[in-house]
């Protein structure tokens, strides 16, 4: 499904309203049938919780201000077990607290939707590799703006139920606090099977009661996978979920330089590249829409372009996305990290790098094989090696 086309169609059909990202995401969840949310305030996620708290009861759902992130994910776990659509979220730090539960929820095959309203893009590893124990993957959607975010939230609930696997929506401060004109009309998805695994008490005492469990055990008399079997089962689901990969690319056919970027910064990168193109530079872009499954094939194809000399990865971090880019490029061209850590001085919001001119400068430097310009103001923070470390 192409992200842009369906949103345009819906925009033409439906009334659009000016709405802040946080509210739009919450409304999109509710329109998807989400009836439970639990969260703990933390910048820049807090407003998402506020909107759920206000809107969910009106829709017949429940929003609990959990006393910790750990309890928030536990509550969502319980709600999911009953077959309800449920979500939780935080920023990266809060999601760190939830990691054990994320692992086990994935093993229990529960369709949790997770919101990361991240501080920058340095939670890429946390989202795509998972910070929890064991072999598991979450599908990760990375919207570039509020419009796409509204679509991705609905897609997240659908994919989570389709695969009985958590799906994470990777947003950020910009997404949460930007107002855009959007439509929250519900998207129609293909039908999914009944949740015959859910528990509601009705099977208790029947001899066929159900257990929602991450452990490979089952009720007496029913076949059990065992711990090892369960791990194998979940591991073999992973490659099957890779068909959910989504990607957008542009200007790659005759490109000499390809830049990979995701999320809000990708929109800046695309704009910078369109301007550089107008100035005659043959630069293209690849925008992963799913961070997991990562579009290795699309990156490989772009890097295999007949004139491609170099690939850059732009991200607001110390370099995480770049590792997946290197895997995708597979040695066809040199890969250079052209991003940087970027938040404001508080650490929560956007920083100096998220600037079209600055980004265009860096892409051009890459394209012309020049040294990357220093990010103004960052030199003073460079770690200096000390004597005892040499």
């Amino acid at each position, binding site marked *: 499904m192409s992200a842009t086309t369906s949103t345009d169609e819906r925009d033409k059909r439906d009334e659009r309203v000016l709405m802040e990202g946080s509210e739009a995401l919450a409304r999109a969840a509710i329109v998807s049938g989400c009836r439970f949310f639990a969260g703990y305030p933390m910048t820049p996620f807090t407003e998402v919780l506020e909107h759920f708290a206000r809107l969910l009861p009106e829709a017949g759902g429940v929003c609990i201000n959990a006393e910790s992130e750990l309890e928030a994910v536990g509550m969502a776990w319980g709600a999911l077990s009953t077959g309800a659509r449920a979500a939780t979220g935080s920023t990266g730090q809060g999601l760190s607290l939830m990691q054990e539960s994320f692992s086990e929820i994935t093993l229990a095959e529960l369709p949790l939707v997770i919101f990361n309203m991240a501080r920058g893009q340095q939670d890429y590893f946390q989202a795509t590799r998972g910070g929890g124990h064991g072999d598991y993957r979450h599908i990760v959607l990375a919207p570039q703006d509020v419009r796409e975010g509204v679509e991705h939230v609905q897609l997240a609930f659908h994919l989570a139920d389709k695969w009985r696997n958590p799906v994470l929506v990777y947003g950020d401060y910009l997404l949460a606090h930007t107002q855009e004109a959007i439509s929250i009309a519900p998207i129609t998805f293909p039908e999914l099977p009944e949740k015959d695994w859910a528990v509601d*008490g009705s099977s208790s005492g029947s001899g066929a009661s159900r257990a929602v469990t991450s*452990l490979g055990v089952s009720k007496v008399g029913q076949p059990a996978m065992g711990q090892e079997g369960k791990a194998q089962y979940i591991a073999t689901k992973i490659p099957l979920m890779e068909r959910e990969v989504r990607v957008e690319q542009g200007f790659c056919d005759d490109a000499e330089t390809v830049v990979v970027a995701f999320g809000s910064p990708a929109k800046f990168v695309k704009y910078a590249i369109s301007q550089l193109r107008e100035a005659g530079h043959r630069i293209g872009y690849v925008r992963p829409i799913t961070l997991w499954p990562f579009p290795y094939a699309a990156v490989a194809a772009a890097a295999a372009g007949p004139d491609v000399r170099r690939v850059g990865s732009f991200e607001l971090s110390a370099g995480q996305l770049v590792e997946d880019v290197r895997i995708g490029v597979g040695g066809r061209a040199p890969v250079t990290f052209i991003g940087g850590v970027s938040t404001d001085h508080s650490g929560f919001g956007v920083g100096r790098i998220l600037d079209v001119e600055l980004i265009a400068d860096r892409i051009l430097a890459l394209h012309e094989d020049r040294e990357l310009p220093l990010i103004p103001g960052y030199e003073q923070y460079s770690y200096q090696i000390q004597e005892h470390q040499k």
Partner: protein
Amino acid sequence: MTIIDTSSAPTVPARKVEALKPDLLLTQEHHMCPGCGEPLAVRQFLETIEELGVATRTIAVAGIGCYTSFSGSMDLDLVQALHGRAPSVATGVKRMLPDSLVFTLQGDGDMVNEGLQEVLHTAARGEKVTCILLNNGVFGETGGHMTATSVIGQRTKNSLDGRDAEYHGYPILIGDLIAQLQGASYVARGSVHNAGSVARTRKMFKRAFESQLRGEGFTFVEVLTMCPTGWFVPTADGPSYMQETLGEVHIMGELKTDGRVRTTEELHAENVAKQRELDEQLARGGIEK
């Protein structure tokens, strides 16, 4: 000595007054150690659910400990939670299914160590669930280590000379903490060291479940159970060891009922009288249900 044949039901007219196992237990078999007190508690709350006729709206949430294996043998719809995390999971279940009977089954290591925050917040919020604590004063499953409920002087694998107040700190009387919270409607502490205490504990389960079903608030039943393996005592000494250690500190009784809160200290005196009364009933031929 004359031995009576007990291999089959009596041939003279007789009424079966106690079944082999609860209907809600799929099998009598389990891997608990000889002399373990946990199955005694499991029988009583399962029979209570049967007695109340609410099985088809009951959902259990199990923590992690020796008792976790009952997740498979209890014929109840169930969600398996992580160590300490059952109260939040129970919250999510009950909020989505407000007419259900939801209870957690947790050990002291699970609830009072790892999950102290969870149970306190769930109680404070008045979530209409029942948390059941199987308290044997040790982490049984991992081999008998000290928990937050282990008492001063108690010998465990990581307090081999006995729990020392200076070095290890003091035990937490979790029932007292919960009873203080406005969201808690019924808080009780039972035990399974003898038949009388088992019968008393049975009544606590019933009152807790009934309070939940009336929507009154959070309910809590703690049950002291024997763990001869974790205590390094012979199985036959489990009950007396319990009474000399945990039983001296975590006193049996109802800490909160009908809005009235009592402390553990206040429970001490009435326990002596209660035990005597139950022993007399047993001697006369059975405890009045």
